[in-house]
Every structure is written in structure tokens, then in C-alpha cells.
């Protein structure tokens, strides 16, 4: 990619981050919190998309990585009095370890078998989080409010209940992960991952050990999901088994599909779209999932590449 094209791509992504930063000053309080939540969940979808969109591996077990981050961060805060930075690091570390161990076993399979294996592992993880309910409190979960020390910025104490901390914490995580994903996508390693997605055997014969690259992709994906889970626990003060359930493995798949798999900004768009669709629909009817289902059908039938995938195919072929 030429320097000019590279400048355009990075310019666009930095602009998106800048707009999100500016938005906090104009958004009404209700949307302010929503956007913070969307940003954290988008990181989860970004991680999912590294594996599905850029490596071609579909998982139905990502809730395991999200929850590993959530418990990895939340339990040390609750029981050991960890501060936020240490807890975040622990959460990400847990995600990396879980994804690495899982990958060493599960990447012996591919395609549908990988999908099923990931589902099985995630179910086992979910059931374990219920089984150890003396520690995790299962579905009921742990409330972190009051346990987590406030952060200090130049002598000012900022507690985790402050909306500004939630928003900017979420945005910081999102910005780092978005740009990190972009760099990965444009790197030589990103080129190998895409080649594996397109034709794994050919890639092996061109000199790349595809297993190692798939494992790397899975670990990056798991680390991003865990970073999202850990941040979610810290910013929204809750850790519970619900986040390890199958539904939370399906969400990032839907968000990625909606936004456009294999696009960097697609996960953000898909997450925001779905979040507000559920939000609006549940205002009209208790059968809001029906509305969500119709929206998904429309997308799958007429825009199978998702929002940004369609935009890229029709108008902006340079989008990464």
C-alpha cells in the first residue's frame, strides 16, 4: 500500500476516534452510557472479527474469552483488592492463556468441527462458572462497586461511577484496539492471515506454517475479547455467568456479520446498530427479538456482506 493510501486509511480511523471523543460533550446522558457500553462491546466484536473476518475461522465459543477477561479482572478486585490497571492486565492475561490452550487443542480441527469444538469448550467454561458459585456467585454475579479504588489523574480522584471515566475509559480501550487491529491487518502477518482465509493449503505451500498463524490470530482474538470483558467488569461494576453463556458467543458473530466481516470498522457499526435496534424495539414491544430477527433477515438476504462490506464493494474498495 502506498504512503498516500496508508495516510487515508489511518486518517479515516483516527477521525472516527476523534468524532467519538467529541460526541461525549453533546450526547444526552442516556446515550452517553450506551455509547460507552457499545465501545467496550465493539472491542469484543473487533476481536471476533480478527478470527472470522481476517483468518476465516468461525467460533461459537468467544464468550469463554470475554468471560475469562471478566473473571480474570473481577475476581482479583473482589477478593484481593486489586486496582484497575492490575485487574485489567490480569483479565487480558487470562484471555491469552485460555485462548492459547484452547487453540493448541481446537485448531487441530477446522470448519464446522472447529465451530462445534469451540461451542463445547465455551459451554464447559460456562458450566464451570456456575459450578464454582461459592466464588463466582453464578448467575447472580459479583458487584464490584465500592471494591474498586478510584483512579488518580494529576491529584484528582475519579471514581468508577463517573460517566466521564466510563466513556473515556471505553474510548481509550477502543482506540488502542481499533488501531492495533488496523496495524495487524496491514502488516505482513495480516497478509498471511487473509491468505489462510482464502486458501490455507496454498499458503502452506508458499512457505507459511498456517497452524502458528491461526494460533496467533486466535490468541489476539481472545486477548481482545478478554480486554473487553475485563473493561466491562471494571467500568460497569458487574461480573456474572450470563456473560459466559452461549448468547454472548452469538452476539459478536451477529455484530460482525451486521457491520461487515473482514472490515475494521464493521464491528463498531454492527454493535451500535444492533444495540440501538434492541433498545428502540424493546420500547415498542416486548417481542423485540422479532424485530431484531427481521432486521437480520433483511441484512442476510440483501446485504450479505454487512453494512461496511456493502459500502466497500460498491463505493470504497480501499477500506481495510
Amino acid at each position: 500500500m502506498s504512503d498516500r493510501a496508508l495516510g487515508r486509511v489511518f486518517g479515516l480511523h483516527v477521525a472516527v476516534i476523534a468524532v467519538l471523543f467529541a460526541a461525549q460533550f453533546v450526547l444526552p446522558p442516556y446515550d452517553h452510557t450506551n455509547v460507552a457500553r457499545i465501545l467496550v462491546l465493539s472491542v469484543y466484536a473487533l476481536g471476533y472479527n480478527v478470527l472470522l473476518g481476517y483468518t476465516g475461522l468461525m467460533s461459537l465459543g468467544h464468550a469463554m474469552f470475554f468471560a475469562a477477561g471478566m473473571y480474570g479482572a473481577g475476581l482479583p478486585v473482589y477478593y484481593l483488592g486489586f486496582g484497575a490497571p492490575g485487574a485489567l492486565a490480569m483479565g487480558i492475561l487470562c484471555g491469552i492463556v485460555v485462548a492459547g490452550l484452547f487453540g493448541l487443542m481446537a485448531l487441530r480441527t477446522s470448519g464446522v468441527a472447529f465451530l462445534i469444538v469451540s461451542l463445547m469448550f465455551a459451554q464447559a467454561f460456562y458450566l464451570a462458572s456456575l459450578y464454582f458459585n461459592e466464588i463466582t456467585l453464578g448467575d447472580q454475579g459479583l458487584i464490584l462497586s465500592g471494591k474498586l479504588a478510584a483512579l488518580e489523574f494529576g491529584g484528582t480522584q475519579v471514581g468508577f461511577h463517573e460517566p466521564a471515566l466510563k466513556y473515556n475509559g471505553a474510548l481509550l480501550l477502543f482506540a488502542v484496539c481499533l488501531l492495533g487491529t488496523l496495524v495487524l491487518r496491514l502488516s505482513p502477518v495480516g497478509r498471511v492471515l487473509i491468505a489462510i482465509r482464502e486458501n490455507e493449503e496454498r499458503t502452506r505451500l508458499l512457505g507459511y506454517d498456517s497452524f502458528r498463524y491461526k494460533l496467533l490470530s486466535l490468541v489476539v482474538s481472545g486477548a481482545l475479547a478478554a480486554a473487553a470483558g475485563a473493561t466491562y467488569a471494571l467500568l460497569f461494576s458487574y461480573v456474572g455467568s450470563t456473560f459466559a453463556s452461549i448468547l454472548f458467543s452469538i452476539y459478536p458473530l451477529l455484530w460482525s456479520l451486521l457491520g461487515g466481516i473482514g472490515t475494521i470498522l464493521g464491528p463498531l457499526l454492527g454493535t451500535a446498530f444492533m444495540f440501538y435496534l434492541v433498545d428502540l424495539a424493546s420500547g415498542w414491544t416486548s417481542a423485540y427479538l422479532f424485530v431484531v430477527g427481521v432486521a437480520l433477515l433483511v441484512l442476510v438476504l440483501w446485504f450479505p456482506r454487512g453494512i461496511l462490506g456493502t459500502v466497500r464493494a460498491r463505493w470504497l474498495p480501499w477500506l481495510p
Partner: protein
Amino acid sequence: MSALLETRALSKRFGGLNAVHEVDLQVAPGEIRALIGPNGAGKTTLVGMICGRLAPTSGRIFHRGEEITSMPPWERLKRGIVYTFQVTSIFKGLSCYENVALPAQRKLMTGIAARVALAESAVATRVQAALDSVGLAAEAGKQADQLAYGHQRLLELAMALAADPQLLILDEPTQGLAEAEIAQLCDLVRTIARKATVLLIEHNMDVVLSLASRVTVMDAGSIVAEGTPAEIAGNPVVQKAYLGR
């Protein structure tokens, strides 16, 4: 003579079929070796084992005197053993540039820093050189499946060239090409052969006779004859089994 490539009693069975049976093949450095034989003779299976696509049932493979029988394909590529597919196997959804960039960046990816951020200009130079040599420089930005079939074959070859082959295995490279393109391809293979050894599977006897320094004939999984093009053309066994004269 020390062989660049040597197989000893190399065999591959698929169920009850002896696709390749105890083949002893020696290829000397710098030669263009043609591998001919009727369909189903085991030529593609044999080179598949040499490049690491297929695991042999028994037998051994040596490259530069070192055994590579159980070496994975990506390690063999690092040694310079490069294979081009009989059925075009390009990345259809990617641009020609990206197709060639994948093998072109391989040697540059040393150390963690280069894996994350490689000087793209270094890759671009190599890609351009490979596309130039097959005459596809103008198509760099085009998506690979938009190319005409003949050009897809050439793209496949450009991918192989970008990998810096020491031993280039071409599996029916002229299949589906027009006369003019075949002539162009022959010139290209001669150019490549100045630096590399070429193992060529080919059905077009004119191409074989004009390019090859030696010819190996296979039938039913075994080598039935070997010699210079002139010897092979005059060999009665070969004429019966293959040339049909």
C-alpha cells in the same frame, strides 16, 4: 555427480492403488528435467511428495544431500523447493499484487519487527519484478479472478518466481495457453533455468523437446525410461506407452 534432488524407492498408495511405486529419481543441479507420461501415471503425485503436499507411504526424499522426507511444506519452500499447481490455485479474491506479495515477503519476514511492519517498498520491488517477468505488471491492481485463464496461469508462475525458487516444479504450465503464450512461457522457463533447476510436467511434446535437457517417462506409477529428448523420442517403449506412434 551429486544430485540436487533424489528420491529413493518413493511410493504412494491410495487405498488399493499404487499411484507411485518405488520411484528412484535423480535431478542434477541446473537442468530442466521433463516428466512425461500418460494421465494417471503418477507424475503429479510424485511431485506432490517432493514439495510436501502429500506424505509418502514409503521411501525417502533428499534435497542437496539432506533428507527432507518428513519436512513440512513451508520448510521445503524455505529451501527453495517451489511448486506451481496443475489446476490454477491463486487467491482469486485478492489482487494480483497481493497474490505475489505473499511469497515475495516470505524471505523479508525475519524477526518480530519485520513481521509487524515491513518496508512495503522492499516487497513492492520484488512483486514488481515477478509480475514484470511474466508480463503482468500492468495487471497488478486487478483482482485475480478478473484475469483471463492464461493470465491466471502466468500469475501462478509469478507467485512461484517471487519465492526465489532453487528447484521450481511446474505442473503442466502450458495447459490452456494459446500458441503465442506458450512460446513466451518457454522463453521464461529458459530464463529461470539459468538460476534454478526446473522439474517440468508437460504433455505438449514440442515444449518438452525444445526445453528439456533430460526427460523422464512414467507409466502406471513407475519410471519406464529416461534419457535425452532425442533418445526418448526414439525409444520404442515410450512410443508405445505414451506417444502412441
